[in-house]
């Protein structure tokens, strides 16, 4: 459909406004992180990378990053494993309570995270478990594993059950089918589920707040510092966290692209 000049202008303006709305806050955090001043004021008078140096040298920061990273990696690994088997139960096999299972497993996603966090904290207390980053892993899993399962299930729904039957018919046992057919076909779903799990855990605040106990993740620390004792270390770490996430996503895409390219070259050689 041809668009008139005036329509095009409106579209451009609209597009720019939406992008600005989404990104100006992030950019301003970036600016704040390179300000030399102790408090955030605009316009920034003197720039400095001092806080980045400080962040990299700080033992608090490295402790925070270690905690957040440990939680996120564990949540990712466990979520992907749970999602793989959960999605198979969800989408591939017909069994008596399947539809009930499908609904129940998705329910935690719809709980407000603060409510979920509070409920888990009360539950841990009543069991006499002292909250640490390990309980946070459990808390994150309650919310993230269903999302990962859903992502893998969508993939599982989209492939023909006859593929597994055909493999069996040609002599493959259950384990071989899993390795040769099911796993490779679900791989794109598992990769995106893993990415989501990592990012959701890495950036999670409400669940961590309730369930980490004396330990602290990066988002928790950022919040605590905003409430009392702001320093430019806050935006600095914020920026570092965002950059870290971006690097992860780009790396994942690069790996996916590399794998595809490999397959294609092996397909055209000869």
């Amino acid at each position: 459909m041809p668009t008139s000049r005036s329509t095009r202008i409106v579209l451009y303006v609209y597009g720019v406004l939406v992008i600005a709305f989404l990104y100006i806050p992030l950019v301003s955090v970036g600016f704040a992180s390179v300000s030399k001043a102790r408090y955030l004021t605009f316009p920034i008078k003197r720039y400095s990378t001092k806080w980045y140096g400080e962040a990299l040298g700080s033992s608090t920061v490295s402790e925070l990053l270690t905690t957040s990273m440990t939680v996120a990696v564990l949540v990712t690994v466990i979520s992907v494993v749970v999602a793989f088997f959960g999605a198979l139960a969800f989408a591939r096999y017909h069994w008596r309570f399947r539809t009930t299972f499908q609904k129940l497993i998705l329910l935690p996603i719809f709980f407000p995270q603060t409510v979920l966090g509070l409920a888990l904290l009360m539950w841990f207390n009543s069991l006499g478990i002292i909250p640490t980053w390990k309980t946070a892993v459990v808390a994150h899993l309650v919310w993230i594993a269903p999302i990962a399962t859903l992502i893998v299930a969508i993939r599982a729904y989209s492939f023909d059950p006859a593929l597994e039957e055909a493999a069996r018919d040609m002599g493959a046992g259950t384990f071989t089918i899993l390795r040769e057919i099911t796993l490779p076909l679900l791989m794109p779903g598992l990769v995106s589920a893993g990415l989501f799990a990592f990012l959701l855990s890495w950036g999670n605040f409400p669940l961590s707040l309730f369930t980490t106990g004396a330990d602290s993740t990066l988002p928790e620390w950022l919040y605590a510092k905003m409430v009392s004792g702001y320093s430019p270390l806050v935006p600095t770490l914020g920026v570092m966290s965002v950059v870290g996430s971006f690097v992860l996503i780009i790396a994942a895409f690069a790996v996916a692209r590399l794998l595809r390219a490999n397959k294609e070259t092996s397909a055209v050689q000869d």
Partner: protein
Amino acid sequence: MGSPGLLRLRGVVKRFGSFTAVRDIDLDIVEGEFFTIVGPSGSGKSTLIRLLVGMDEVTEGEIWLRDKRIDKTPANLRPTCMVFQSLALFPHMTVGQNIEFPLKLRKEPQDKRRARAEELLDLLRLPRSYYDKRISQCSGGERQRVALARALAFDPEILFFDEPLSALDYRLRKTLEKELKDLHARTGKTFVYITHSLEEAMVMSDRIAIMKEGRFEQIAVADEIYSAPVSRFVAEFMGEVNLFPLSAGADGRIASDALSVRPGMRLSQLTPGSGGLLMVRPEYVRLAGDADGFDFSLKGIVHGEYALGSRIQYEIETVNGMVTVEKLREDRLTATEGQTLVLGFNAENTHFIGEAA
């Protein structure tokens, strides 16, 4: 076909809860034959083939392959293989990897696998360069051939087919039907094929079984199924047909509400006091000015004319309802719609279906 059955079914029953999909089936499939099971959807043919392949378990009965009872053997341990309706080609593998899959499972060395895959590509008339192609780069007909090659690589005792041609367009289907028949002849394998298309069955099969509500109505060679169906269901399933109710009096004289019968006509299958249906295929009905020289005749008004390509079909309104008549294009009628004619046919071109059926 006197040789002993390669695959034997004895009293095979399959129930899903209270629903019986397959009812007490006995069957002997002879080594090397092309056997087709035809039936409408819901007739139980897909259930039956799943039992034969081992993807579902029989509720009752026995399945024997040569001298081994296999009905408790799971699909992956049976020496048979199926070409699926969806073909079930692995999308994450190349054509070559698909074909080699059953060989890889048997841990055959790479060079032997490749040699066999290339042999099969030749057999299925696919260029060897397809070895490294992805499945998504193949056309419908090519995928069909890849699926066949993969099944043949397995080297099954019996090759099963679950309507693999149903998703293809008419011309490609026609070509592949002939190719399948040809492949059957060249490989000498036993093929068991299921389809809802009688035409497909007629082109390819040595024997055909017509299935209805979980039972076989008739098992016979294609010609016999066409010319001598055992029931109204089989007759109507096997293409256009005209059926006339008949009965015989105590003296053996034929009585019919619709047909004028030549005086003194007798049908050997029509015993005195019984009744049934007289079947005549559209190509055997003659159109004439009067009833002279016909064993059976009736009057009708030309209702419609339909071109079928090489043949022309007429619908003619009679006291027995619409009667279908077919002529070759060169024998096209001069009659026009609304004209009254006499339809006649002779006993040698008819088939009698007894009352019970």
